[in-house]
């Protein structure tokens, strides 16, 4: 704190009146007199013992200098007082309080002495701060290096055991501690792992067991606070060392904690230079332990995330397998029902048609009413037969089994051309689709069928394009723009179905059951599904399914 005028008040100041005659004592100690008027107690000036010695018989009035020094307030700064002395050519000034009453005197030597003391003190403080700053700078550099090492460990070291071991190695080096240990605790606060540095394998085997949480280690665990001791053996809470344990003296223990949750403790013993651990060491260790806590949290989260990802992948895989089985079973059932309908119902219908034709012919002249009824039933039967045939085709397109996927798709497109004449349909097939397995063929067929159905019924399009290609064979620009370059050795089938219709709103795209079913089919086979659509700008469905379904 900067000295004030009150700190500089002259000691031993003697108050006298102007009419008094000085009486100098036998001592040679210099005296300073403040002279006041005997009539009204007004301050008149200062007289020194040296001045008295020159004219010892004079009264104080005749010893005073000709001018009265100006008074300064007690709040005046030392620098301002010195400036006033310089300006007014005085070596001493009276000091007054707020009411103007005389308080004392300050002299130039005393003020300069105080300032010098103050500047020397400031200089010493500055020097100490610079020293501390250099020390901290060095320490921070080391901490930074250590933190980078820890970050590197986090990036490259797998598992919290390795993290804890590497962390305590770095921390002990940083704080120049001979011994270090990290105790990791489980959710219940029990010691789950203990990692040491500075203790040889031979010493570890001689000790034979990890700490049991007795004595000072137990104190740290229970209180969850830092502990810094110059000599741990003198602490009444110390339980001593087990046989074979190296002797240790100074101790620094800090919790590995973050946001109030404790993950373990860091213990450091005996600095290499023999000094006790300092407050700065504690700050560094606490900071480092917090970093270690964050590293442990991240490690644990990574482990948990990895496990969760594995579990998710497993469940997804199971789900795909189940969906594939379900689709396969569904297709097989459809195929069986279609065959039954074709083989059984078809034959009956054909027989009934033949019988009705005969009945109609025989009754034409004899029983015109029966003839008319027979013709009506025959017409209904033909329509019923057509319906059954259509049903069979929907259940299992017969061309798919008879001619293959490419021809079945051609037939499907032709059918849509005849149904939706306002739309210009275009089908492009690249590569040999015959190599695809049975499940994939029917999946491709169903997807194309669903998408074309959507276009015909909802898109209000004038142009529609369907492209099916086997990726290895595909070099088309449009295909590569949507799917990227063709994969090297792995094979897949790619579908691109687009139109120039009204497009889908995001809500329709999400809620449409047909598209949802398409997506499920694709994902069940390990494929990728994407839908691009903007209102008024058409819709584009891009699908890629691996030819050999992923496990």
């Amino acid at each position: 704190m900067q000295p004030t005028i009150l700190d500089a008040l002259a000691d031993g100041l003697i108050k006298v009146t102007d009419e008094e005659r000085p009486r100098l004592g036998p001592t040679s100690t210099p005296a300073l007199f403040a002279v006041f008027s005997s009539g009204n107690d007004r301050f008149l000036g200062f007289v020194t013992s040296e001045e008295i010695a020159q004219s010892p018989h004079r009264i104080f009035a005749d010893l005073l200098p000709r001018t009265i020094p100006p008074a300064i307030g007690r709040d005046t700064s030392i620098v301002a007082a010195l400036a006033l002395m310089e300006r007014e050519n005085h070596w001493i000034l009276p000091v007054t309080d707020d009411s103007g009453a005389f308080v004392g005197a300050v002299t130039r030597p005393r003020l300069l002495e105080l300032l010098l003391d103050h500047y020397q003190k400031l200089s010493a403080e500055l020097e100490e701060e610079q020293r501390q700053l250099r020390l901290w700078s060095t320490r921070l550099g080391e901490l930074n290096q250590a933190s980078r090492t820890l970050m590197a460990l986090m990036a490259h070291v797998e598992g919290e055991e390795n993290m804890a071991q590497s962390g305590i190695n770095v921390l002990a080096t940083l704080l120049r501690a001979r011994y270090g240990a990290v105790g990791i605790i489980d959710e219940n606060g029990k010691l789950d792992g203990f990692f040491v540095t500075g203790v040889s394998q031979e010493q570890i085997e001689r000790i034979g067991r990890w700490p049991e949480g007795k004595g000072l280690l137990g104190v740290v665990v229970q209180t969850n606070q830092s502990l810094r001791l110059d000599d741990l053996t003198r602490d009444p809470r110390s339980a001593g060392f087990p046989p074979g344990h190296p002797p240790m003296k100074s101790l620094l223990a800090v919790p590995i904690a973050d946001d109030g949750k404790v993950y373990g403790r860091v213990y450091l013993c005996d600095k290499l230079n023999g000094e006790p651990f300092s407050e700065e060491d504690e700050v560094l260790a606490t900071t480092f332990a917090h970093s270690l806590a964050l590293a442990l949290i991240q490690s644990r989260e990574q482990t948990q995330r990895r496990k969760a990802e594995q579990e998710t992948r497993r469940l997804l895989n199971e789900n795909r397998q189940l969906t594939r089985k379900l689709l396969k079973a569904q297709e097989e059932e459809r195929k069986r029902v279609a065959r039954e309908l074709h083989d059984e119902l078809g034959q009956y219908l054909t027989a009934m048609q033949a019988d009705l034709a005969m009945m109609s012919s025989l009754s034409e002249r004899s029983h015109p009413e029966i003839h008319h009824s027979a013709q009506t039933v025959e017409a209904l039967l033909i329509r019923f037969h057509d319906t059954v045939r259509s049903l069979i085709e929907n259940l299992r397109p017969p061309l798919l089994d008879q001619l293959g996927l490419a021809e079945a798709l051609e037939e499907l497109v032709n059918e849509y051309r005849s149904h939706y004449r306002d739309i210009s349909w275009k089908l492009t097939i690249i590569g040999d689709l015959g190599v695809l397995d049975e499940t994939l063929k029917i999946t491709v067929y169903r997807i194309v069928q669903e998408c074309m159905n959507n276009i015909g019924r909802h898109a209000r399009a004038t142009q529609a394009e369907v492209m099916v290609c086997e990726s290895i064979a595909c070099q088309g620009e449009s295909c590569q723009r949507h799917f990227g370059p063709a994969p090297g050795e792995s094979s897949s089938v790619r579908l691109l179905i687009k139109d120039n219709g009204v497009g889908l709103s995001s809500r329709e795209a999400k809620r449409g059951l047909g598209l949802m079913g398409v997506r499920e089919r694709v994902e069940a086979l390990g494929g990728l599904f994407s839908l691009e659509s903007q209102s008024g700008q058409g819709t584009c469905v891009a699908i890629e399914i691996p030819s050999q379904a992923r496990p």
Partner: protein
Amino acid sequence: MQDNKLTTKYTLRARIREFKIPPVHEGLVLGRRATIGCKAIRKSLELLMTYPFAHLELEDEVISDILVREAVLRRVPKEQLIEFVLQRIKPFMDDTEILHLDVETELHLEETF
């Protein structure tokens, strides 16, 4: 043998003069190192005498002050008096002394109509 008994004889001789009031007529010249300072002398003069004295302060190494009856300064300008004292009296004076100053002034007045 001589008698060693000592005897003491006292002889008194007196010179009596009247203490003249005032002790100072026209003024005093004070040496710079005089035992009594100007303020003390002035205070004494004020107590002893009824007529006022003027205080002339000098910047000189021997003479520090002149105390002179104000009536004198009505006849002689103070600058002329100071010059006179410094030129005529100072050479005979020590800086530790205080000297009586008796001033005789003579004015020649002439008026032409």
